[in-house]
Structures are given as C-alpha cells and as structure tokens.
C-alpha cells in the first residue's frame, strides 16, 4: 500500500475550553473520494480550515505525501499541491471568469515578480486556465465578469480556480451548497470525474452526492470522529444513525 496523499492524526482545535475539532484522524488516497459528513456544528469546516491552513491546529499532525504541514501557511500548502474551495463563494467578483483562473494559474508561473511582460502574453498560464475552465464546463463564459454567473456556475468557478493551480489534493467545502437539482447533477458529475485522478476530501450535507461519490466516509459529531468506513457500513452504523436522526433508523441515500 503506497503512502496516502493525506494522513491526519489526532488533529485538535481548541477555542478556550471548547474543542471544535477533537482528535480527528483520517486518510485520503488518490482515486478514492473521502467524504466527511455530520450534523451542523460538527466541526467539518474547521477541519477543512485546519487542513488548508486558514486556521492553525492546537495539536495533531497533518502529513501530505509524508510532509508535515501544521507549521505551513496557506500559500505554502497551496504550492505543495493542495487546492481548497470555499463554502461561501470566494471568487474575484469583478474580474472575468477567465481572469479568475488565469490568476490562479499564474501563481505557479516561474517569475512571480515579473513587471515587464504583459500578464496575458504567457501561453502556459493561459493554457492552464483554459484547461481548468474546460474541465468544469465554463469555457463559454470565459470573458464574462464573474458576477454575471449564476450561483451554480460560480460554485463551478470556485473549483476551476483550484484546478488551475494543478493540485494533487482537493479540499472541497460543501461545493453543492445552495444549488438546485439540475446544477447539483452537473457538479456531482464533475466531482466524480475529478475523483478518478485526484485525491479529494469532500465535506458535504447533500447525502445523494455523498453516497454517489464517496468510497470512504468519515462521520463527525461535536468535533469528534464517530465512525469511518465504506458508505454501506456507515449507513448501517447505529452511532451514526443516532447522531443524525436521534434514533436508530436507516439513513436515506
């Protein structure tokens, strides 16, 4: 068994006396979408923040291809190959769709402080941006301002921006948030395609998506992991049922 892309051990985040994330451990491998689910307030977004570097962990280790991440700033983690999408759409609203991705791709260009060249004259960066837009299906909207996109399209742009940086691990924070039925289907298809070639950690509330996409599920409640396993095992797990439904019943999905 090769080294997992992401290995988390005993990750904790304390706010005063409150443990928002309490000794969480999990692993993510390429081609194996790992979903994290749980009721509201379970600590899922905090977990993603700890992994992306937006918040600093109080204790525990995060190993990315065997490299310890806890001390690294978000930009450093991104450069190592981690892409993170946000629950509340976090794009550059007044830039064009293309510029959003181009800027993301530019971060990997060899001369960041270049002040001589025109930014738009770099073919490699432009190509990367266009590829990312193609992958999410937004190529036709490239020249429009990001504001003009529908909510679902903006969520797609969120992901395109991550892809434009060429990541090896994707941390997706509720990509389906606020989406209608039709848009969700497209997004699920997109994530499914990505899951084949990427390592993905997906935080989601939408159970359809989760049970369609995930190969591994981790269930969190009150900051702790209460179960980890395959979708079938989780569905039948009593603790999970109690945490979600307050009683031991079958979970939908």
């Amino acid at each position, binding site marked *: 068994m090769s080294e997992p892309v992401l290995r988390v051990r005993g990750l904790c985040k304390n706010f005063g006396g409150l443990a928002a994330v309490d000794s969480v451990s999990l692993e993510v491998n390429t081609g194996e979408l790992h979903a994290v689910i749980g009721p509201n307030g379970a600590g899922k977004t905090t977990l993603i923040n700890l992994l*992306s*570097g*937006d918040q600093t962990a109080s204790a525990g280790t995060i190993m990315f291809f065997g490299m310890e991440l806890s001390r690294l*700033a*978000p*930009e450093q983690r*991104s*450069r190592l190959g981690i*892409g*993170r999408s*946000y629950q509340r759409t*976090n*794009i*550059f*609203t*007044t*830039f*064009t769709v293309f*510029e959003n991705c*181009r*800027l*993301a791709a*530019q*971060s*990997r*260009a060899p*001369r*960041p*402080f*270049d*002040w*001589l*060249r*025109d*930014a*738009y004259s*770099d073919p490699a960066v432009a190509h990367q941006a266009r590829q990312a837009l193609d992958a999410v299906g937004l190529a036709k909207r490239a020249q429009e301002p990001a504001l003009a996109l529908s909510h679902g399209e903006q969520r797609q742009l969120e992901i395109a*921006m*991550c892809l*434009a*940086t060429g990541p090896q691990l994707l941390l997706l924070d509720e990509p389906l948030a606020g989406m209608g039925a039709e848009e969700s289907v497209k997004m699920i298809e997109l994530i499914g395609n990505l899951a084949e070639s990427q390592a993905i950690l997906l935080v989601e509330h939408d159970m359809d998506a989760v049970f369609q996409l995930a190969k591994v599920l981790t269930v969190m409640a009150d900051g702790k992991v209460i179960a980890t396993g395959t979708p079938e095992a989780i569905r039948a797990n009593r603790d999970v049922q109690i945490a979600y439904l307050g009683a031991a019943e079958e979970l939908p999905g």
Partner: protein
Amino acid sequence: MPNITLTRAPLLVALVLLVLFPLVGSTFYLQLGAKIMIMAIFALSLDLLVGHAGMVSLGHAAYFGVAAYALALISPKYEAANLWLTLPLAVGAAALAALIVGAFVVRTGGVYFIMATLAFAQMIYAVFHDTKIAGGSDGIYITVRPDLSVAGFKPLNLESPSEFYYLALILLAMVFWFLNQLLHAPFGRALAGIRMNEQRMRSIGYPVFAYKLAAFVLAGALAGLAGYLAACQFGFVNPDILAWHQSGIVLMMIILGGMGRLHGAVIGAFAYVFLQEVLSTPAVVGVYAKHWQLPMGALIVAIVLVLPHGIGGFFDIAVRRYRFRQSEDAKDQP
C-alpha cells in the same frame, strides 16, 4: 480583460502639449508646471499603494521627505551635487526606509495599518524635527541644484527653469510608463487580486506578504524620487515636508482625480495644485486668498460625500454606463 486599458489618444495629446509648453510658458508657469509634475509622481506612487494594492497609508510623506533630506545632507554646501550619484542614493534611502517600516507595518491591515503608517511617519518626523541630526526645525538649504554632467557632457542645466521642467516631464513620463507596464504584468495583476480578496490569493498560493511589502517599498522609492526633485526645485528642506498633513494632501490628490487609474493620479495632482493656486490668488478670491484651505477642505468633503470615485472616476463610470446601455439596447434587437 482588466479595466485598466488606457485610451491612447488623450494621453498622447497631453504629452505633446506638455512637451510644447515651454515654448510659450513664462518662468512662473514653467516652475508651476514642474511642481505639478513632481506632485504627480508623488500621487502616482501613492496610487500604486492605495488604488492598486489596496493599502491605505497615512504616512507616505515620510519617504518623500527622506529622499529630500538625503539630497540636502549629501549635497556639498556651496557646490552642485552630481545627480547621477545623488538621485539613486536618495531614492535608495527612501526605499530602505520603506523597507524597514514596511517589514513592520505590512503585517497589519485595515485601520491598524493606517495608524501604524501614521505612527512610523510621525517617528521619522520627530527624528528630523526634534533632533539635531538634520538641522532640526530650521531645515537645510540646497544652494545649487544638482549637476547632470557625465564625462564632460551636460545634457540639461537644472538651473534653467525650462530644462528643469523637462527633467520633471521625462521622469514623470518614465514613472507613468513603468507603472502602466507593472499593472499589466503578472506582479500588477497579483496586486489587483490581493486588493480584492487577500484570503483567496493566499489559498491559491501567492506569498501575499512579499507582494505587499514589494508594493510598499516600490511606492516609497517613487515617493522618494518626487521628494528628490522637490528638494532640487525648492532648494530648501525642513520637517514640514514629512508632516502627516502632507500625507493627507497626497491622499486627497488621488481621490480628487480618481483612485485606481494612473491618469487619475496625474489629474488629481494637476487639479489640486491648480485649485490651490486659484484659491490663493487675491485677484480671484480677494481677501480670502490666505484662507484657500477652507474651500479646498469643503471641496474634499463634498467630493467624498457626492463623488466617491473622484472627478476622473465620475467620467469613467458615466462612459461605462453609456456603453453598457448601448450594448443592452443592441441585445434587445431581434
């Protein structure tokens, strides 16, 4: 495409007019023109920082002053200093000051950044005003303007008003061109992203602190260039050029002309100096000429309340609305 495309024609016209001006202008207007162009460089430097990197500094006059004082301190008492030597040194001193201060203040943001820049600028002011290091509140005179001679050849004689005017014009054009390049280049695009959404820039891999610090130092260096020229022109430096009042004035200029557009900074500098001259001319306003800051202050208040994007921005928005409406109408056609 980012919204910083320049309309070429008006710029070229302006440039030609500026180049031809010395043929018709009197000495007074040549000096005024040079002063405006120096202020335009100062305003451009702040526009980079505030308008493009989104970092509101209330202490920018410090770097203007450091370079001016640098020239005063290294100039021989009764001879001309060599421009080729003193200009880089003065600008370098300003850049160094900006680097040291920036290393501390760029860590902060928002209102704390505003106050931190003010605090450090006041510290620098106190050094020049309270101590004997640089003549205290009396200031230092620069009796002879710097000399441009190199290997016996003297391209410009700065003692001549028209030639000093041309130096200012050349440098303004260079700074303008340089900043335009910069804003279209990867570095400039990154700054625009940082201004809009710093957190996202970090999360896609940009070392935001390094970019902001670089912008801060660059802005400081360009302010230093303006300060050097101002010292040359005025022939006298004193702590007032570093006062926070000055930092407020240059902030006013970029709002007056429209922030975030290079030509806005230049327009703002022209507008401010022009207004100042008009409002302080007894022939125009009579007895209240001495109190020109009153209508100036009232104008600023009015502009902030009514025209938040400045004069230049007002026109930009009007043009954009007109174009948008045109395209909307076109869409309605079957």
